[in-house]
């Protein structure tokens, strides 16, 4: 079973890897955007970790909602509202339950993906974070349904996100700033898909490193 601690360590894992990859994300965004994705995500998840550290005893769903609110109120840019609402809708799935299992984790991520697509109106292939998030969620759902061990399902989901991230390279962007470049967006990896892959890998680490 997973609980509030799982969410907290997921957020800490994200903060660590986003900070480590900050400059890389900035470079990717400089190539086809405006060069701030690394600083945006870094600022946001630093704030999230602080907010959760200050929290005492909220259930996991609440923690996700707090994390989402924090992203919305600190990131700005496109990624702030998108990941912010994603985590908020994910959190609402759990209500006040203190623990959650694999199928519920699938529901959380399904709700998160839905709100990203709803708010951003991006579809698979538009060269956005959706290209990493959607395959990850689909993979997790399928493997959990097959009854695969969660650790393995999450590993495959993260791998699917990473594959989706790489698959954005040849695409021409249809959403976000990169779309302004038209053909010139081809040949570059989407920064948001890249940070999304980090977020899914962080989830796998958070869950498997659990006692």
């Amino acid at each position, binding site marked *: 079973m997973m609980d509030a601690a799982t969410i907290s360590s997921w957020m800490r894992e994200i903060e660590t890897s986003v900070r480590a990859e900050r400059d890389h994300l900035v470079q990717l965004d400089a190539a086809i955007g405006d060069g701030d994705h690394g*600083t945006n995500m870094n600022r946001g998840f630093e704030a999230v970790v602080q907010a959760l550290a200050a929290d005492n005893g909220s259930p996991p769903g609440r923690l996700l909602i707090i994390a989402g609110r924090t992203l919305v109120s600190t990131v700005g840019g496109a990624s702030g509202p998108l990941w912010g609402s994603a985590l908020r809708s994910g959190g609402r799935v759990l209500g006040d339950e203190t623990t959650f299992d694999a199928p519920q984790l699938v529901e959380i991520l399904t709700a998160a993906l839905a709100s990203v697509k709803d708010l951003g109106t991006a579809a698979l292939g538009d060269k956005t974070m959706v290209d990493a998030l959607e395959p990850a969620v689909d993979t997790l759902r399928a493997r959990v349904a097959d009854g695969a061990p969660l650790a393995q399902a999450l590993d495959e989901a993260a791998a699917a996100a990473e594959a989706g991230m790489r698959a954005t390279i040849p695409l021409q962007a249809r959403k976000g700033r990169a779309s302004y470049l038209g053909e010139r967006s081809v040949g570059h990896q989407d920064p948001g898909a890249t940070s999304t892959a980090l977020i899914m890998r962080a989830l796998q680490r958070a869950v498997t490193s659990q006692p």
Partner: protein
Amino acid sequence: MAVETNQMRKFLNDPAAVVKDSLKGLAAAHGDLLRYDAANQIIVRKDAPKKGKVALISGGGSGHEPLHGGFVGLGMLDAAAPGEVFTSPVPGQMLAATKAVDGGAGVVHIVKNYTGDVLNFKLAAEDAADEGIKVTTVVIDDDVAVQDSLYTAGRRGVGATVLAEKIAGAAAEGGADLAHVTDTIKRVNARARSFGVALSSCVPPASGKAIFELPEGQIELGVGIHGEPGRRRAALGTASEVVDVMVEAVVSDLKAKHGSKVLVFVNGLGGTPLLELYLIYGEVDEKLRKAGLEPVRNLVGSYITSLEMAGASLTVLELDEELIKLWDAPVHTPALRWRV
């Protein structure tokens, strides 16, 4: 002078605080017109809220100064919500600004069409509605360099934003209601087109690195205002040749009636001096007349910038009597002032 140096050609203290430091200075210089709410990082017109007046707010990433904070004042904006450099502000800023200026007649959100701006303003408008404030939103998307389509993010909002803020601000100052002010902004956006070119990149303070490398003798055609490269790169020709490209792009898309009166806005992107902007204006004026349009108003200067980027943008607005009247109406802000 300290040995510790900052590796940019910029006057900065803490690069992370550049926006706050600059807003502090703006308020110190123009305390007669506006105040800086540091807690919410917003610039608010000194006498806001004005009971019964429709309020206008805008916002977006910083690095485009004087946009938007420099346009807060009589006859223009009631508040501005500046984000970090090139990063959309967060909904809390727009919500605070909306509350600070609402005079009961409603608040218009003027939003440049960037995914980040649109989404953050959307969340703010929802929150404001929850608090019972009438909010309308107009998205500006005048940049013809970007191909528009249902399936893309659509055109960027650039130069028309300045014109819309001035013109709608005059309408609101004159007592127009929420529907009319909102409609006026939509008309400006519908009748204006822009195209920008760059001769250099710019250096965001946070990264301290140029966003792209542009060799001397090359030009980026169709750039926006966030240091992003343009649609294509070409050899830099004469000013006349560059202006041919800008005018053709704008005029062919605007499709104004032959003989229309137009407002011509030649805007510097931050690093191009007035000597060149006026040279460009001379070329634009001549070519527009050849194209059968009549420039009757103009604005030449650096009003919607991309940090210190060398470059310029052209915005052409097709005018009618009401728009001319509103453009000529009194305005008193740090960056635009006349008839007061």
